[in-house]
Each structure stands twice: as structure tokens, then as C-alpha cells.
């Protein structure tokens, strides 16, 4: 009976305060040591019995794919974030004729699959442009003939749609008193935005932005379907050349796991460096 009670008490403690991240010491609990040993054995078994001889041969392709994925992530997230600021802002303070299209944009982007948006832009717009002679002769043509601008555009718009919603919430969530204080200081509307509203909103949105960035990373492999050679496409090439089922895909999952881990760790680092009072 007492044992049960103790277990119960432990349960309650767990419910009240979940450990945010296991410390180094927590890693060396007996059951975790056993699990790590099992995992290590699994890795060794995989390294011994599976075929990994393709790795050195395709290292160059994989590295360039990794670079493309990284570039796509950084460029589209930055552009999407810049777009999301006006999209979020006009929904909070803007006039009706600006707020409504912004809301419609967010609804459409968030209501349809990214794969469909990507194919709509690539196949749809891509099939439209060659029919317009003015575009064929313009300096843009070399870019419109290849796939990556469509990938960048689709990912940027998707990012802007999702983040626009986040920024709308963040702008709306900044305490009114702070904005009133800024106005009382005689700041112009633009100065208020630059000095108070925007920094406070970004600060509030930071934890969510971390999730959005991970989501953006997880969206990048979709561009492989429109012939952009990112990490996913590089692995697809390995699969086609070697006829291997498991190894390349497991390796790919492992690589993405590492990338997500790095992103999360980076955001944690920056979040800790930012001064925060309360929540």
C-alpha cells in the first residue's frame, strides 16, 4: 500500500514539473545505460550487415544536396519572415481593404497542401510563361525556365502564410500600455513600430518561430518533386542507382534528425541570450 502511495507521489511530482531537458547525470540512469547499449549494438549491427559502400562515392552529391537544403531553408525562411511582418501587421491595425486580402492569403496558404501549391506554381505558371513572348525575351527567362525559383517562391509564400498568422497573434499580444506609452512620448507611428511594437512582437513570437523554422526545414524536401536537387533528391538518386531500400532512407532520416537538432539547439541558445522578464 505504501509503495503504491509513493509511486503515486512520484507521478504527481512528474505531473507538476516535467524535466525540460535531461541533464548529463540523467543520462546515466541504469535503464538508460542499457538502452544506449542496445542502441549502440543496433548501430553496429546496421553498420556491419547493411551496405554503406555507396557513401564515399556519393559524398559530393550529398554535400551539395545538403547545401541546397540549407540555402532553401535560410532564404525562404528569411523572405517569408519579412513578408509575414506586413501580413501580420495589416491584420491587426490595417484598413479593411488590406486586412481582408492578408487574411484570405493566410487562409488559402494554410488551407491547402504545400505540395499542391508547389505544383500549381511550377506546372501551372511554368506552363503559362512560355506562351508569353515578352517573358521569353526578358532577362528573367533563364530563371523562369529552371525549377528552383518556383521552389523558393512556393516555400516563401507558404512560410509567409503560416508566419503571418503567428505575427498577427504576436502583434495583437503586445500590451496596449507599452504602445500608449510610446505614443505619449510623441513617437511617430513608424518609430513606434520600429522601436517598440516590432521588437516586442518578435520577442513574443520567438518560441513559435522556432517551431515554424523546423516546419520549414521539413517542407524543403518537397522541392525534390519539381527536380530541384536537394538532400532528398540526392538520396533518391542513390536509391535509383544502387537499388537499396533501407540504407539511403534511414541515412536521410538520420540527417534530417541532426538538422532539426541543430536548429532547436541554436534557437535555445538565442532564446537564453535574450533577456526575459516573466513570461
Amino acid at each position, binding site marked *: 500500500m505504501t509503495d503504491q502511495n509513493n509511486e503515486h507521489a512520484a507521478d504527481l511530482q512528474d505531473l507538476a514539473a516535467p524535466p525540460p531537458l535531461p541533464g548529463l547525470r540523467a543520462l546515466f540512469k541504469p535503464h538508460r545505460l542499457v538502452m544506449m547499449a542496445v542502441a549502440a549494438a543496433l548501430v553496429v549491427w546496421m553498420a556491419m550487415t547493411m551496405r554503406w559502400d555507396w557513401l564515399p562515392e556519393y559524398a559530393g552529391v550529398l554535400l551539395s544536396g545538403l547545401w541546397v537544403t540549407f540555402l532553401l531553408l535560410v532564404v525562404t525562411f528569411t523572405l517569408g519572415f519579412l513578408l509575414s511582418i506586413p501580413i501580420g501587421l495589416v491584420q491587426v491595425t490595417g484598413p479593411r481593404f488590406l486586412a481582408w486580402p492578408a487574411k484570405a492569403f493566410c487562409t488559402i496558404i494554410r488551407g*491547402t497542401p504545400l*505540395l*499542391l501549391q508547389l505544383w500549381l506554381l511550377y506546372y501551372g505558371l511554368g506552363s503559362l510563361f512560355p506562351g508569353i513572348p515578352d517573358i521569353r525575351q526578358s532577362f528573367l527567362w533563364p530563371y523562369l525556365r529552371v525549377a528552383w525559383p518556383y521552389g523558393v517562391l512556393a516555400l516563401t509564400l507558404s512560410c509567409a502564410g503560416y508566419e503571418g498568422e503567428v505575427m498577427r497573434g504576436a502583434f495583437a499580444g503586445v500590451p496596449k500600455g507599452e504602445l500608449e506609452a510610446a505614443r505619449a512620448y510623441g513617437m511617430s507611428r513608424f518609430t513606434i513600430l520600429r522601436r517598440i511594437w516590432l521588437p516586442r512582437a518578435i520577442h513574443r513570437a520567438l518560441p513559435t518561430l522556432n517551431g515554424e523554422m523546423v516546419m520549414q526545414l521539413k517542407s524543403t524536401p518537397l522541392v525534390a518533386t519539381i527536380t530541384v536537387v536537394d538532400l*532528398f533528391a540526392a538520396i533518391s538518386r542513390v536509391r535509383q542507382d544502387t537499388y537499396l531500400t533501407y540504407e539511403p532512407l534511414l541515412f536521410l532520416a538520420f540527417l534530417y534528425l541532426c538538422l532539426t537538432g541543430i536548429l532547436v539547439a541554436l534557437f535555445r541558445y538565442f532564446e537564453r541570450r535574450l533577456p526575459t522578464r516573466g513570461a
Partner: protein
Amino acid sequence: MISWELLALSPPGWGGVLLRGLLTSLEVAAGGYIVGQIIGVFGAAGKLYGGPVIRDLMEIYTTVIRAVPEMVLIVLLYYAGTDALNNILASFGHEAMDISGMVAGIMVIGLVQGGYSTEVLRGAIKAIPPGQIEAARAYGMAPAKIMRRITLPAMLPHAIPGLANLWLITTKDTALLAVVGFTELTLATRQAAGVTKDYLLFFSAAGVLYLIVTLISNVIIHFIEKRARRGMTRPQS
């Protein structure tokens, strides 16, 4: 300029193909969602009440599912998963099973959703005042009965926003099955567009269909949320 007759429901038009694709998408989404919720209930229970090993295994499951792109998971589970299943069956002397695309799709979507729903349900269960579960324990209810009678009903209002979000994500995740050649709405659209060369029209039409699903879901979700929260105080915003 726009040839609407391409969207006609009968064979010269492709509207019927698109609608069938939509139906397939919704079937996979519904099936995957249900599988995901079942995994989520057990996952959340395992994370909250399981032993240390189960807890860690669940943590690994949710971390991996949430960190690896859905598209990679779907390709991995769809190809490697069915292959591994057949290998296991073969090693036990059974004949290789021909797993239909629908079943594989539902399982894959379910496994992915299960990772997310574990987290949603875990959070919702933790939002229940602990006294309610303690009271059930004090009544001498068995853990399974507590789960069924107290925990699950009491956590539902807290879980509904998260679960609703998951449903919307599920409907959109089914589009990724197009990558492995499963003919749902997105792939059907691409086939129709490829044949007629009218890409813009068909992809826009499919977009409208997805949007309609989302908007109708939103209306239903709003209704369910209102019903689940009846009698509760409005959260301070």
C-alpha cells in the same frame, strides 16, 4: 479562355476523377487520423504513467516523428515499411502480403499523426486537475477504468483545439502520398493536368477542393469546441 468543360463530372471532363481522388484523400485522412488517435492515447498514457523504459521509448518515438520531414517518413514507411513487413512474414514462413496502397497510406499517416497526438493528449491530460484522478484512484478504480471514465472524458475539452489542428494537418498530409504514387486528390489532379495540359485550371480546382474541406472542418470544429466547452469559464485572453 478557361475551358470549364474539362471539369465536367462525366468522362470527357475530369471532375469525377478529382472528386474520387478527394474521397480517397478523405478516407485515408479519416483512417490515418483514427489510427493516430489510438496511438496517441497509448503514447500519452505510456509517457505519463509508464515505466522509465516505456517513457524513454515514447520520447524517442515522438522526437523522431516530429523531427524528420513527413515526406521522408512517408517514403520510408511506405517502401521500407511494407518491404520489412514482407521480410518478417517470409522469415516466419508466411507468403508475402500484398498491402494495398490504402492500408499502407492509412498506417503511415497514422504513425506520423500518432507522434503529434501523443504530445497533444499528454498536454491535455496534464491539464486535468490532479484531484479528479486522485479521487478516482481513491474509489479503487483500476487504471484502465480511470482512463476510460475520468481521464479521457475530462481531458477532451483541453485536447480539442490541438486535435482539430491535427485533423487539418492530416487532410493536407495525405497529399504527400502522391509522392509514393498513391492516387489521391493531388496525384489525380496531376494526372488530369498532365493529360489535358491545363495545369493551372486543375491545380486551382484541387486547391479549391482542399480549401472547402478545411473551411467545412473549421465550421464543424467550432461547433464541437463550443459544445465541449459548455459550462466552462471562458479562458482569459
